[in-house]
């Protein structure tokens, strides 16, 4: 018998996910240099260190896996993560000083360029969608333009590049100026930019620690398996609450559905699965609207929009979220039972 031959068909791509990470790494490191040059920065060195630690995970992460192996790489990344959290937790990361044109100057610039200013901004979404639809399969000798597993992200990267060039032509502000300008935005987002990744990390620890099973055990204590309405209420609010804790409905869905919906509703009362899971997931989304843990949706925008109250986006969303949660419960109760 001949030894089994494994053939791995590897596809290469120009905008591969690793290259995109490198690009993000360069962008962050550029901001680090700019921060170090900012003489008026109240916490110059610690802020620079904060972003340097973050950027090095992007810039050196994949290289380090190749050279040092996974175990060692994950260890230094883990240590970096702890240092990042410590720097942020001790209040060592702050805004710097920026040269912002006066409102009057901005108005006159806006008037000069006119509605053409919208073009690069609109190009980002349009180019992303068009490229995703049209260019995703383009390849020469099996070298693809886009990473086949991350087509949208690759298309977004390309779109940002194209929009940056269009902006250069239109405003005569170079891409380097653009990068430097983005420090103002990145600093105003600050630690919130890193929170989503931290939460993904916490989710990973919860999986290893089997936190989901513990929640399931806890929830089953409160269940009376005969009361259909209460089961539906428990499943939907459980989805919303657990999503609020995890910041992500995808993390809550398997736990709550395997813990409550499958054993008690589907197997116990013959509930129909398609509406059950669809409405259950939406109940989780109601939770996403109400939690600071969903930082990229709720906290980052508050920072981007310079809101005084970082929780104001959540506060505005709560009435809609609670109304929809109630509607979901009634809707689910109304449609999933066939008898």
């Amino acid at each position, binding site marked *: 018998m001949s030894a089994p031959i494994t053939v791995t068909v590897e596809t290469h791509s120009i905008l591969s996910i690793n290259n995109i990470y490198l690009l993000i790494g360069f962008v962050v490191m550029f901001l680090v240099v700019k921060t170090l040059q900012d003489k008026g920065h109240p916490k110059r060195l610690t802020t620079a260190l904060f972003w340097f630690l973050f950027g090095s995970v992007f810039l050196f992460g994949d290289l380090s896996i190749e050279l040092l192996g996974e175990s060692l790489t994950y260890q230094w990344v883990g240590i970096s993560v702890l240092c990042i959290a410590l720097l942020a937790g001790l209040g060592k990361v702050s805004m710097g000083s920026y040269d912002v044109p006066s409102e009057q100057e901005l108005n006159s*610039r806006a008037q000069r360029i006119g509605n053409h200013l919208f073009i690069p901004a609109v190009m980002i979404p349009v180019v*992303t969608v068009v490229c995703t639809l049209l260019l995703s399969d383009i390849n020469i000798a099996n070298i693809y333009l886009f990473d086949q597993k991350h087509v*949208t992200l690759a298309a977004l990267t390309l779109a940002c590049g194209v929009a940056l060039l269009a902006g250069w032509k*239109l*405003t005569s502000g170079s891409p380097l100026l653009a990068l430097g300008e983005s420090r103002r935005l990145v600093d105003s987002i600050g630690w919130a930019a890193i929170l989503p990744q931290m939460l993904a990390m916490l989710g990973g620890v919860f999986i290893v620690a089997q*936190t989901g099973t513990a929640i399931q055990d806890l929830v089953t*204590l409160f269940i009376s398996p005969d009361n259909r309405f209460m089961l539906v209420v428990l499943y939907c609010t459980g989805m919303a609450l657990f999503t609020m804790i995890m910041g992500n409905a995808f993390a809550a869905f398997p736990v709550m559905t395997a813990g409550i919906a499958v054993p008690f509703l589907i197997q116990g009362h013959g509930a129909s699965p398609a509406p059950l899971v669809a409405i259950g997931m939406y109940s989780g989304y109601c939770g996403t*609207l109400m939690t600071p843990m969903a930082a990229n949706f709720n906290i980052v925008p508050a920072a981007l929009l310079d809101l005084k109250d970082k929780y104001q986006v959540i506060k505005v969303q709560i009435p809609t979220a609670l109304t929809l949660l109630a509607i979901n419960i009634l809707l689910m109760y109304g449609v999933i039972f066939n008898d």
Partner: protein
Amino acid sequence: MSELNLLPLLGIVIVVFGFALRFNPLLVVCVAGLATGWAVNIDFISLLETFGEKFMNSRQLASFLLILPVIALLERYGLQQRAKSWVASIKSVTTSRILSVYFIVRECSAALGLLSLAGQPQTVRPLLAPMALGAAANMHGTLPKHIQDLISAHAAACDNIAVFFGEDIFIAFGAVLLMDAFLKENGIAGIEPLHIGLWAIPTAIAALIVHLFRLARLEAKIHHLMNEFNHCSTVEMSEELS
């Protein structure tokens, strides 16, 4: 029933209290992770490796950083001001109407899978929020900070709610595929992603109705807040004069 082991829940308790007491979220999350690992006896080195691995593997979450240079550049040349003055030139436009139209377009396009068509950094900050503010300023004059914040927060909320409740209709979206995979794993056969997508429609319509209703009332609320503010500032001014 087996003995209830509550130790893995330690992390959740820390997260809830940490947020409630307003500690820095990065610190809260790290401490919660460390405490959970400690509670279930994971040794420190492998906990550190889990931290590093999950952090590395979720790096795509930081991709919005790539959008910021373009937005920052355009803002330096007056994008927000232009958005405001452009909206001001349309007479019939109101904050509610702008947000409502955006909501409808965003939810429908999300249902068709065009999720990356908009988002907080690429559309809400540079375009939607300034336009909504411009429309309000058009009607009421200069807005005080708390009313500006209310309108901006509504712009952000519009994008979130519309995309969340639209996206699950699109059957190739991650959430739908996740649900489908979950059902198959748990031995529940005969469900297609299409069924799940169809059952997302009632809630999507409910979200549309509920939120458009709230947006319709936003106009009156802005009006009310402006009156209150003007009244207060007139009182203050007359007090200063007397």
